[in-house]
């Protein structure tokens, strides 16, 4: 007739008598476990923080990768390097011909401020003032509220019958 506490002892004895790949060679003492847990606490929290930053960084990278259309990955594997060079030269020559002919050499200029000649002066100057930050904040809030009031009203059909008698 077995007793209540005999099962645990049996298990331990069985493990020791029949060792397999999961049998630990050293059984850790309870005191050691507590000490290890106490020491590794801050390390775990640091790892969690780093993991959060890493996951956030990974999320941004994934979002950016979704937004970018990678045109090189579709065809570049099927084209030899020589053909690739020939095509690149041909495309750039044609693009240059079109740009020279139209007289628009700087089509993609976005008209934003184009750098400064003395960066040390700008870097040494005082940063943006609080009044400017408050100004842009208040203006953007007012404009956002005004934009929320815009409602698109349907006036005429967007589909026009063309050539139908």
């Amino acid at each position, binding site marked *: 007739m077995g007793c209540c506490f005999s099962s645990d002892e049996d298990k331990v004895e069985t493990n020791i008598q029949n060792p397999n790949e999961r049998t630990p060679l050293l059984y850790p003492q309870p005191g050691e476990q507590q000490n290890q847990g106490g020491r590794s606490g801050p390390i775990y929290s640091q790892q969690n923080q780093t993991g959060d930053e890493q996951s956030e960084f990974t999320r*941004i990278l994934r*979002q950016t990768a979704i937004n970018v259309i990678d045109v090189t990955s579709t065809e570049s594997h099927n084209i030899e390097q020589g053909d690739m060079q020939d095509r690149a030269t041909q495309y750039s020559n044609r693009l240059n011909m079109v740009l020279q002919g139209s007289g628009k050499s700087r089509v993609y*200029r*976005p*008209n*934003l*401020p*184009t*750098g*400064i*000649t003395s960066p040390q002066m*700008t870097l040494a100057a005082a940063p*943006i003032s609080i009044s*400017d*930050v408050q*100004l*842009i*904040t208040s*203006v*953007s*809030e*007012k*404009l*956002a509220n*005004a*934009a*929320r*009031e*815009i*409602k698109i009203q349907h006036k005429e059909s967007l589909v026009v019958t063309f050539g139908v008698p």
Partner: protein
Amino acid sequence: MERTLEMQLEESIHNPGITGVLCVDNNGLCLGAKGSAPLKACGSISALAGQAAKLANPNGPTPVICLESEHGIVLIKKTDKLTTALFKSS
């Protein structure tokens, strides 16, 4: 309708030093402009504000971007559906 937006744009350009105001939606479409603001910069401003917002705390306020040049500064701020750019002369 958009009359309120036009009035706010007109009001904001009367601030001292402001030479132009741009109002762009999240797709880079210009919703309104006043003063000497370059309309070609709409897409760039929207994209710039979107990239900067990714770096900031998503629960906090959106960052204010300041582009500095010798002739003045450009202040950019993004709200939920709108990006505002103020062109200020120095």
